[in-house]
């Protein structure tokens, strides 16, 4: 308990009348990757949204460095990067504009060249200036994932980050996650795809049993 950064105790979540999970306990240290597994509808997304503070749990508590995330509020969100089912990018804005807005909201001082570099690294060279609605599903996802390159957040919460990506992008994303974890960051992710996430300590959590 003393060393762990993220502590979850006796967490219970409900959707309407259905109890998704209860009595969930786990804690994560720096440099840990948590892989959440479970059937469809077992509450993976709900758990991830709860970790972000978007969903209020029925019971239990989530603590970040010993303090409840409810009380930390903005101080917690500063450390957080959430990547959900929705890409969170505007179709009418270009990749550059989207990332510039995201960076400003995150409070990062990111200059334009850093954003260009990030988009090139994620494999969107030549598409930086196009409105993102003209891009394919996978490319839109890449724009959203470019935030991971720019982010300084300590905790990454990634919901199905590998879907719609080609093998190159999957490898790239794995590299990013591995580097983040090796750097002492925390990552919580769900995926149904078999990807070798080899770096650091990989914890697994099975829901819905």
């Amino acid at each position, binding site marked *: 308990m003393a060393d762990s950064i993220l502590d979850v105790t006796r967490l219970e979540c409900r959707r309407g009348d259905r109890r998704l999970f209860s009595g969930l306990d786990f804690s994560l240290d720096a440099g840990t990757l948590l892989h959440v597994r479970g059937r469809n509808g077992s509450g993976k997304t709900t758990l991830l949204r709860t970790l972000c503070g978007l969903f209020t749990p029925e019971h239990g508590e989530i603590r970040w460095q010993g303090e409840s995330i409810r009380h930390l509020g903005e101080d917690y969100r500063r450390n957080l990067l959430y990547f959900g089912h929705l890409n*969170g990018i505007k179709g*009418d804005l270009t990749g550059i504009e989207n990332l510039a807005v995201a960076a400003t909201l995150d409070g990062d001082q990111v200059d334009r060249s850093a954003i260009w570099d990030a988009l090139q690294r994620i494999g969107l060279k030549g598409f930086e200036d196009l409105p993102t609605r003209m891009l394919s599903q996978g490319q839109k996802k890449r724009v959203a994932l470019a935030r991971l390159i720019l982010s300084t957040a300590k905790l990454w919460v990634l919901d199905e980050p590998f879907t719609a990506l080609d093998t190159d992008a999957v490898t790239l994303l794995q590299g990013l996650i591995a580097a983040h974890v090796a750097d002492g960051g925390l990552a919580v992710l769900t995926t149904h795809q078999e990807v070798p996430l080899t770096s650091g300590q990989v914890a697994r959590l099975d829901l819905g049993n």
Partner: protein
Amino acid sequence: MLRVFWCILIRDLTLALRRRTDVLTTLFFFVIVVSLFPLGVSTEHQVLRILGPGVVWVAALLASMLALERLFAADYDDGTLEQMLLTAQPLGLLVLAKIAAHWLLTGLPLVLIAPLVGMQYHLTETAIGVMMFSLLLGTPVLSLIGAIGAALTLGLRGGGILLSLLILPLYIPVLVYGAGAVEVSVIDLSDTRPYLTLLGAFLMVALIFAPVASAAALRISIE
């Protein structure tokens, strides 16, 4: 703080400029509704002059309702709203920036076009001046109060109708004092002062409470 406010404001304005139809619909709706009354009721100068202020204000109310639904819905659908909720920035500030953009795109055009519709109703120059000023004070209140409703009904089925039922009653004071100011200006310009002062007071109160209330409503809606 200010950087974030500008960032969202400019983002929303850019988005609207790339999708101009949304802005133009509101404006045309306003113009058409206002133009229908002389055609349907009477073209008598005397009747129109009495009708004018009320009709313009009711049309402004309805026009601002029209665009409200989309205030948060577009961001909700593509997940950018979710991301805004997860930033370390105060949500009230982001909401205020969105409301400001909304007003610049839907409220301000109504103020600017008011002289044109005022002429249709044979309003005097002073009356048109007062109407523009009352709209300038009143339409931001409409956007601010409307944002609370838009946040509360976000993601609900049939949210549009519910939004109207929820918000229109709250618009009544603005309508009464906005149209009232124009009406009394016909008699004596100095009589408009209490009306406009009250509208200004509404604006101040709404400016303080509406962003916070909308932010709280958004947090509930996004669950």
